[in-house]
């Protein structure tokens, strides 16, 4: 805070020179500092490329993700043998598959491209759910304080102590149960339908949202409490601003930074949650590819056909790197204490 530039105008002339300087908002300042962070820039570029890949998958992927050519199963391109020499004795070559074919003869490359859709959807939906629920919840709890806060936070504590993974398994088992238990027209039925229409991704969202929003709510609450006591909030109350105005105009804009950073850093966690759910067989419905399910399938054959696990794992790792570096960069850039450094 002590770093604020003193711009006390001493004379009219000084004022004019000041005004001719480019003025810079907090956002611009943050952006400028973000752009200086090479890792963050690289991360951001990778994410943009990934989004493009996901959107343009039908044009980039060389084959449909579900096309099986049974006789081509486990085929590998020639170049792969130089990377994994252990493949040599039994590999069947086919250069039609840039990264090889999987256990039923589907093109790994195309599936990785399409698989980015699931991972990126998770990367978008996770924060969405956790921000919508978590921020609203945490704001209410932190702003009103007192017994409201007490009750709301105790609820979070209970949910926090509840292993969400088991909750997902139980939910999935419940909603993917025989049709007779769930009658059409009910809420449960629509959820079931929604899940089916999303290719089984709905419960991944639920699972991710479940774990995520509690952390978000706690973070938001803490931030709101610290901002709530600031004098500018009192000032807003003095002029008669409504609770909603104070919340949206004064408190939220001031906590957005930490929240954005926390979410960006949480994204890799969501992506790996999807991978884990896929590993225990609770992921997307086949044949929809996801990196998680590809890794889970490939990991079983990792000694025989390492490419089937390693390439999707590589895709996952690159994505996680990108989000992590971007998140770290954003934090450095948005931290008001670091403002004006470098």
């Amino acid at each position: 805070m002590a770093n604020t530039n003193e711009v006390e105008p001493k004379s009219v002339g000084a004022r004019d020179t000041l005004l001719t300087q480019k003025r810079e908002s907090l956002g611009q300042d943050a952006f400028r500092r973000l752009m200086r962070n090479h890792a963050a820039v690289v991360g951001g570029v990778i994410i943009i490329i990934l989004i493009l890949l996901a959107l343009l998958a039908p044009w980039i992927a060389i084959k449909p993700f579900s096309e099986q050519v049974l006789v081509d199963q486990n085929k590998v391109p020639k170049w792969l043998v130089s990377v994994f020499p252990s493949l040599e004795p039994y590999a069947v070559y086919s250069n039609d598959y840039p990264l090889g074919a999987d256990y039923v003869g589907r093109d790994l490359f195309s599936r990785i491209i399409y698989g980015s859709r699931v991972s990126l959807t998770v990367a978008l939906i996770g924060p969405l759910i956790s921000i919508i629920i978590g921020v609203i919840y945490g704001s209410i709890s932190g702003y009103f304080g007192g017994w409201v806060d007490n009750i709301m936070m105790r609820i979070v504590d209970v949910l926090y102590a509840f292993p969400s993974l088991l909750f997902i398994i139980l939910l999935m088992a419940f909603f993917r149960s025989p049709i007779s238990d769930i009658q059409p027209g009910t809420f449960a039925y629509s959820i079931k339908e929604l899940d089916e229409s999303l290719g089984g991704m709905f419960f991944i969202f639920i699972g991710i949202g479940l774990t995520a929003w509690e952390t978000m709510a706690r973070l938001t609450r803490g931030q709101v409490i610290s901002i709530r006591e600031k004098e500018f909030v009192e000032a807003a109350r003095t002029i008669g601003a409504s609770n909603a105005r104070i919340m949206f105009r004064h408190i939220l804009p001031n906590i957005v930074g930490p929240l954005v950073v926390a979410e960006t850093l949480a994204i890799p966690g969501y992506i790996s949650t999807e991978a884990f759910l896929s590993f225990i067989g609770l992921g997307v419905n086949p044949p929809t590819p996801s990196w998680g399910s590809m890794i889970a399938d490939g990991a079983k054959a990792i000694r025989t056909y390492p490419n089937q696990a390693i390439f999707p794992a590589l895709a996952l790792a690159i994505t996680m790197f990108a989000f992590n570096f971007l998140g770290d960069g954003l934090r450095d850039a948005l931290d008001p204490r670091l403002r004006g450094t470098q």
Partner: protein
Amino acid sequence: MGRFIVRRLLYMLAVILVVSVITFLLMHAVPGGPFTREKSLPEETIKILEKRYHLDQPLYVQYTSYLYAVFIPHFTTTPPNAALSSQDDFLLNVKIGSLWIRWMNFGPSYRSRGRTVNDIFRDNLPISAQLGVMSLIISILIGMPLGVMAALKQNTMLDYLGMGIAILGVSVPVIVLGPIFVWVFGITLKWLPPTGWAAKPPFFLGFLPSNLNWEFFQHALMPSFALGLGSSAVIARLTRASLLQTIREDYIRTARAKGLQERVIIVRHAMKNSMIPVVTILGPLFAALVTGTFVTELIFGIPGMGKYFVTSITNRDYPVIMGTILLYAVFLVLANLIVDIMYAYLDPRIRYD
């Protein structure tokens, strides 16, 4: 502080009660029962089995008798003899005079005949705890130095390299890392045993391996690393962020102005204060690691708790589901309590009453 701890412990009890209600209702709501088999059992057999485990009673009776068995201490004059019935095994048995105080009967496992949830806790939890503690140590030993290095050399190659290594740990899932470890170190190089755990019950003090020798560490090395690498990234990043903030505080400048050595400044002044966010994450991390991790235990063939977390649900082994979830909740709440106490140590401004 004492008051604070007592309040938190009582509060923990409330959390656990709520968690138990939710779990109980949820697991009974899920279709498929504990005696659903690929080869279906005759209805009569299922009825007999349900009667044996009191599953034919109304849900509220089942729940209250569960609570009674788990939460209410029992006072008897008969010494514990869990042998005859797997329904009569208490975790805590204390003899005062001729009176036995017995507490926490988590019930029998439906799947493992003659075994109780308490048996599973006694045999498997220590192993998960050993693995968890070791992987936590590894993640701290890797994560903290990386984080400190990255913070001190912010935005240099060293920073990117350090964070890169850390993130790599969390980016490559154990599903891939584990088998690769087994392949490289277990099979190809034959440096380490590919699977298994060298410690077995009975455990020293109930949780320490009774044979803490080279063989034990040989077995522990790969799984601890596979598990610890993931958390080391979290620790590294938090350390970095927190240290970055701390070293810009005025008192660090003052320390610099005093002409203190940089090393002294970092170790004595900055580290302690930047540990608070790191300690926060250690709580849940510890709880998660100690209660076991499914994938790691499966890949490395470790007889820990983690597998029970997933398989008990698949088997609809109700007492094991309840037991493991409550255990997890207790660990989590306790871990958070310990974190809060650690806060007070790290930051003398924090007082609880």
